[in-house]
């Protein structure tokens, strides 16, 4: 390690390295690898949305915007959220445009956490939750979700994990990497618990449009929750706009104000052309979104059936675009399985432990890819399993 490491803050130095980075380094050098490791849509942003960004540039709209985002963006978000999720937010004081949900969550944590505060979150989960909490000198407390429950958050497990000092609950349904969702009854129990313990709730609903079974319910829409929920959403998944880096937070004014302070000093504002593309997505993107969701669903059905045929039990994810098969029958741990599969058959899946200790025994396979690739990956995984089962 070079000597400049002495300058790195202790709480940063002690963050674990993302398990995904190592895989990326290997896979990117492999020529004929089949990657099921990509956590983003395999669609290009729909043309009309790209066109809106181009038009914005052509008109010379290249300036900063209001720290909160353009008036038009916030008004459009307000309409979209009210229509699709229920709660109404005031564009003047309760909506903030951010650089994706990643920034929204980061500035929320920084705006509300004091050192030593505790944050409940369910695991396996997106890779940034626990590290972002640690960066705020706060403590992340995982609540395990399990395959038998289709990785929905069990309110009883949440209650069991609670400790004095818990201030915030982070939830993400549908969930990356498990595809877990939460139905109204579960959310009502979670909401009741949040009210009882006076928790603020951060609800990352980035995959909400990609719900395949049942209706998505936002916890923010439940009685008594709007005033204690920060609704986080963005455009990356539903509208295939990952590279635009655009998202938003909606919530009660005082918390949004706190986030705005962090945002204005750290970021200034989200890029104007991304905000304008996002407005087009909100106004006219529904058909494209439905088309992509339909495609994901078809591929989901195939990949899940394939894993089960191969003897890697896999629940049917009800949302997002990840299958999360159980690989324990191979006798390997997640990391070994993923490494060996990559070395022997050049198929990349992400070890479940990259998403927290609760992901042990699982691997994540994205079905946001072509049938051809999923089929080929299936054949290679079959060969891999043959060798290890014979061996």
């Amino acid at each position, binding site marked *: 390690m070079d000597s400049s490491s002495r300058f790195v803050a202790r709480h940063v130095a002690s963050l674990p390295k993302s398990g995904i980075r190592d895989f990326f380094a290997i896979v990117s050098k492999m020529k004929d690898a089949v990657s099921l490791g990509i956590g983003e849509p395999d669609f290009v942003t729909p043309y009309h949305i790209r066109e809106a960004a181009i038009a914005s540039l052509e008109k010379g709209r290249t300036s900063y915007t209001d720290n909160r985002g353009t008036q038009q963006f916030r008004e459009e978000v307000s309409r979209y959220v009210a229509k699709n999720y229920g709660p109404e937010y005031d564009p003047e004081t309760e909506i903030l445009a951010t650089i994706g949900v990643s920034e929204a969550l980061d500035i929320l944590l920084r705006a509300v956490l004091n050192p030593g505060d505790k944050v409940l979150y369910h695991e396996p989960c997106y890779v940034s939750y626990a590290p972002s909490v640690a960066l705020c000198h706060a403590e992340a407390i995982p609540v395990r979700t399990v395959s038998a429950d289709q990785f929905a958050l069990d309110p009883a497990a949440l209650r069991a994990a609670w400790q004095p000092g818990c201030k915030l609950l982070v939830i993400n349904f549908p969930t990356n990497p498990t595809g877990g969702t939460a139905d109204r009854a579960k959310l009502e129990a979670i909401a009741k618990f949040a009210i009882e313990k006076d928790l603020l709730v951060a609800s990352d609903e980035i995959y909400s449009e990609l719900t395949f079974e049942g209706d998505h319910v936002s916890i923010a829409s439940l009685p008594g929750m709007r005033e204690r929920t920060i609704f986080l959403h963005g455009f990356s998944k539903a509208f295939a706009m990952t590279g635009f880096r655009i998202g938003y937070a909606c919530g009660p004014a005082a918390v949004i104000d706190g986030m705005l302070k962090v945002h204005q000093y750290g970021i200034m504002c989200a890029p104007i052309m991304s905000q304008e593309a996002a407005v087009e997505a909100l106004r006219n993107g529904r058909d494209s979104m439905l088309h992509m969701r339909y495609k994901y669903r078809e591929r989901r059905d195939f990949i899940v059936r394939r894993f089960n045929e191969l003897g890697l039990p896999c629940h049917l994810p009800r949302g997002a675009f990840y299958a999360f098969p159980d690989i324990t029958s191979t006798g390997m741990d997640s990391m070994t399985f993923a490494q060996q599969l990559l070395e022997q058959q050049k198929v990349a899946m992400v070890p479940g432990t*990259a998403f927290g200790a609760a992901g042990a025994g699982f691997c994540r396979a994205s079905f946001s890819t072509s049938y051809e690739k999923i089929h080929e990956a299936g054949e290679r995984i079959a060969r891999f399993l043959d060798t290890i089962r014979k061996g």
Partner: protein
Amino acid sequence: MNSVLKLILDGEALDTAQIGKILGLGAEAVDRELAALRQQGVLLGMRPVLNPAFESEHRVRAVIEIKIRTEGVGGFDGIAERISSFEQVESCYLMSGGYDLLVVVTADNLYKVAGFVHERLARIDGVQGTSTHFFLRAYKKDGFIVNSEAAHRDQPSVSP
């Protein structure tokens, strides 16, 4: 829509065994579905989509607008069917607007297309006039962008 047909129209290069596995049918069942679609006249055939830049090393392609007179020559259908029977003709459509038939032809070289126009087409009773346009360069063909720079070349192969 028939699930086999839908998968083929998606444009992915899948063989019947792959299609069978994806749809949970088995290759024989897919073959049976395809045979039925052919028999019903729904599926006329399946061809690979070639990059025209590769193809044009050996072939030229032209689109010909044809004005026709229908009296005494069997109407539009009679002439269109006759023109369609030439092997040089790739496709033939009856059109609205300033001309009647739009015909796409391919040949080994420009002179052969010219020969086809004046020796064959122009001699058909009912053909009043033709206007021939040669394809110069293809940018998109059958839904495929021809020279797309890899859209995802900077996309990480593994990401969170």
